[in-house]
């Protein structure tokens, strides 16, 4: 038997540093140079502004872009289009932006917390919990209201937080999150919500307007919105996203696992609490404006992760901007594509997000079976 020459080289010597390991492996999975996040944020901001102008121009009465732009810059000189632009379209467009930003940012936060790209406020059932809380508010204490929200918004927040805590404890087994439990918890909450609405429908004193609000919520419809609603929620969403930025940095550490993060001096309990509170606040804001709009928090972060990588600090602001633009465009499409019939934007995002969700689920399940 012929012996093959075997190069005798030390694998332990101090020359190890000079040995180009990466070159030897050929770097098959070398990431392409990621887009710088500053560039991306700038692009997303421009896209957001453009989509606001575009969405305000499009509708039953089509306005020229130049007229919309002029009106936005000098509201006093808007003339006869004033009512269409400032009374009808702009509040709705801005509401869509807020809801999209809130849902996408929440998606990033929950995905980091659960270490799972499938965690979305709709999938986890926290949107459902918020809607259920809100429904209780609409039907049981409708008299309590402030700027169009009142008890409804507060109860939506409570519903969102409670659902999140419930899902958390249900899904956590042995320090890890069982994906089945995570998804089933969301399913159970959704079913309970449907059942509860039937009860509300049978309730005789149930006001008609309450039912209409609830129906719009369930399908994720951005209807007629008032400036006071937008004005109240805009600072709330903005503040929550800003406050979430330092939390996002800790979510990067949490990617190493809760125990590892604790070992690195991170107070895991505090990060978890901050994430749940901020995420629930954002979810409640989104739900009280637009109801159950699914999969936005799943689609937008997933797409942006491909562009700029998974670092939560970079992902969060990009997701807020990208989510706002995405939902403005989605809502504009939903209200104009089949005019004069408006389809609820939640129905449209379900058509887009459902398949994406199934794709991700399949991908994840295969990965975990390996």
């Amino acid at each position, binding site marked *: 038997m012929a012996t093959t020459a075997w190069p005798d080289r030390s*694998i332990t010597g101090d020359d190890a540093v000079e040995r180009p390991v990466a070159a030897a492996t050929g770097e098959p*999975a070398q990431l392409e140079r990621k887009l710088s996040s500053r560039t991306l944020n700038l692009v997303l901001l421009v896209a957001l502004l453009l989509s606001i102008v575009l969405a305000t121009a499009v509708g039953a009465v089509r306005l020229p872009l130049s007229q919309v732009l002029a009106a936005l810059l000098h509201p006093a000189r808007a003339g006869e289009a004033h009512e269409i632009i400032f009374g009808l379209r702009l509040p709705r467009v801005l509401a869509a932006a807020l809801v999209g930003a809130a849902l996408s940012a929440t998606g990033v936060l929950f995905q980091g917390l659960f270490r799972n790209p499938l965690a979305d406020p709709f999938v986890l059932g926290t949107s459902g919990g918020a809607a259920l809380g809100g429904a209780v508010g609409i039907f049981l204490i409708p008299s309590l209201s402030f700027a169009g929200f009142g008890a409804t918004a507060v109860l939506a927040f409570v519903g969102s937080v409670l659902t999140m805590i419930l899902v958390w404890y249900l899904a956590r087994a042995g320090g890890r999150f069982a994906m089945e439990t995570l998804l089933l918890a969301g399913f159970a909450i959704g079913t309970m919500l449907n059942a509860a609405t039937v009860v509300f429908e049978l309730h005789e004193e149930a006001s008609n307007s309450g039912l209409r609000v609830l129906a719009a919520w369930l399908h994720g419809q951005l209807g007629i919105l008032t400036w006071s609603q937008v004005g109240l929620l805009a600072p709330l969403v903005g503040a929550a996203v800003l406050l979430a930025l330092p939390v996002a940095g*800790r979510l*990067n550490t949490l990617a190493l*696992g809760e*125990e590892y993060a604790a070992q690195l001096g991170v107070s895991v309990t505090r990060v978890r609490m901050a994430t749940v509170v901020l995420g629930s606040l954002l979810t409640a804001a989104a739900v009280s404006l637009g109801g159950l709009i699914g999969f936005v928090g799943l689609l937008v972060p997933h797409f942006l992760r491909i562009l700029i990588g998974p670092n939560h600090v970079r992902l969060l602001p990009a997701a807020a901007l990208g989510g706002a633009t995405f939902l403005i465009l989605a809502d504009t499409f939903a209200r104009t594509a089949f005019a004069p019939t408006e389809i609820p934007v939640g129905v449209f995002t379900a058509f887009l997000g459902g398949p994406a969700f199934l794709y991700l689920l399949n991908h994840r399940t295969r990965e975990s079976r390996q």
Partner: protein
Amino acid sequence: MTSPVLEFRNVSFSRGPRLLLDRMSFAIEKQEMIALVGPNGVGKTTLLKLASRLLAPAAGEIRLEGKSLGAWSRRELPRAIALVPQELEIPFNFPVEEIVAQGRVPYQPLFGAGTELDRAAVEDAMQAVDIVGLRHRVYSELSGGERQRVKIAIGLAQQPKLMLLDEPTQHLDIGRQIELIALLRRLNQRGLTILAAVHDLSLVAANFASIILLTPEPSWMAGPAAEVLRPDLVARAFSVGQADLGRYFARPAPGAVAQA
């Protein structure tokens, strides 16, 4: 006299009804390189978690550099001690560089980005374990040996005095095992104190001067390799016959080849 880097004083720990550590005492001096040996489930990982305060002892005291472990602040502790865990799974496509940078978290305030010092520490850590070329690679796509080095790099970025490693050679082929032990020796020569749980007794006998042997009674023995790795002690600790040790292993018994 300087205090030991790590000291266990009569430390006991139970998991449920089972006593894992019974009044255990030992001290690790600066720049020692010590192997933690014992059968599966005997409490090696538990001991490492106790030493890094992820678990609290039921009785007794653990001291790091003479200061009781409980007296260290949450952010000070990871600057002195780094635990390299057995398993590390990372979701999403985090590149190696960003993972190693997590070792700097104990040095960073909640607000504000990393400093020049942080970046330098991350570079040094990656250089020390020879993963500079892997910096943009996705962690979840790395081989076992590469992952092991990334994990050690996180620990090095913490710039600790003491590094605890849980089964660093597990799942590695013999070439990667040798590379890893050589790396640990280099780090040790540079001043790092090391306590590593290792299963392979021949690897231990040839590379670690001192050993802590945990046995299921529970009991323990700590001392120079030649004293601890005696065939009778090893046979008892692992619940096998002494004759089997010789029959099933190439060397008569690890203790016989141990050098002081």
